[in-house]
């Protein structure tokens, strides 16, 4: 890092983008840590991390382009991949959480009224969730 002198047009936007990206990412993770329920907690990282990753990857593109004196856009691969993958992941985890919450509620209702539970005799291959 100290051996290479970056020009001003690359260093200043890259520094600003890095600071914004770091702040946005840490905001998303604070949301993941502090929010009370799971469905609230899901929003923080899925949006904050995508924007933070975009900022950091644009900064990385700027710096490597300035380093090699030609446009380097390899990092756009990771950007596109994260932009595609992040909503898919969030959607699947959300569907899993909805399903598990519903199964838990049904099990609790059956425990409240054990006669219908014995009558139905339904089993689903899932352990009772801890907590």
């Amino acid at each position, binding site marked *: *890092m*100290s*051996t*290479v*002198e*970056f*020009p*001003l047009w690359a*260093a*200043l936007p*890259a*520094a*600003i983008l*890095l*600071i914004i*990206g*770091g*702040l946005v*990412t*840490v905001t*998303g*993770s*604070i949301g*993941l*840590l502090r929010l009370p329920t*799971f469905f609230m*907690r*899901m929003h923080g*990282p899925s949006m904050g*991390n995508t924007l*933070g*990753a975009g900022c*950091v*990857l644009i*900064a*990385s593109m700027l*710096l*490597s382009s300035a*380093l090699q004196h030609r446009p380097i856009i*390899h*990092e756009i*691969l*990771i950007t596109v*991949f*994260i932009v595609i*993958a992040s909503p*898919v*992941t969030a959607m*699947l*985890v959300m*569907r*899993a*959480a909805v*399903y*598990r919450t519903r199964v838990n509620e049904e099990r609790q209702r059956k425990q409240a009224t054990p006669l219908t539970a014995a009558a139905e005799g339904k089993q689903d*291959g*899932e352990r009772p*969730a*801890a*907590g």
Partner: protein
Amino acid sequence: MNAVLDAAIWFAQACLAIATTFAAIRLIRGPRAQDRVLAFDTMYINGMLNLLMLGMRSSSTAYFDMALLIAMFGFVGTISLAKFLLRGEVIEP
């Protein structure tokens, strides 16, 4: 100008380390399994960004491939975990 960029990279690395720590705390004490999967997803993206920072600091292009691999395999791992939570098994017959 390099001093500003160096400071910005230090700041961003510190922010990402804090974010990874928060995700690790949620991974350890998450009340249910989906919290842990979400924390794992956050954690690998933060680690990948930290690796890219390391590549920026050392002006090397070797870290880019590692970051791409982490992104792809982390995505596959999170999808598998979510599928396991949803259906009870990953690859169904």
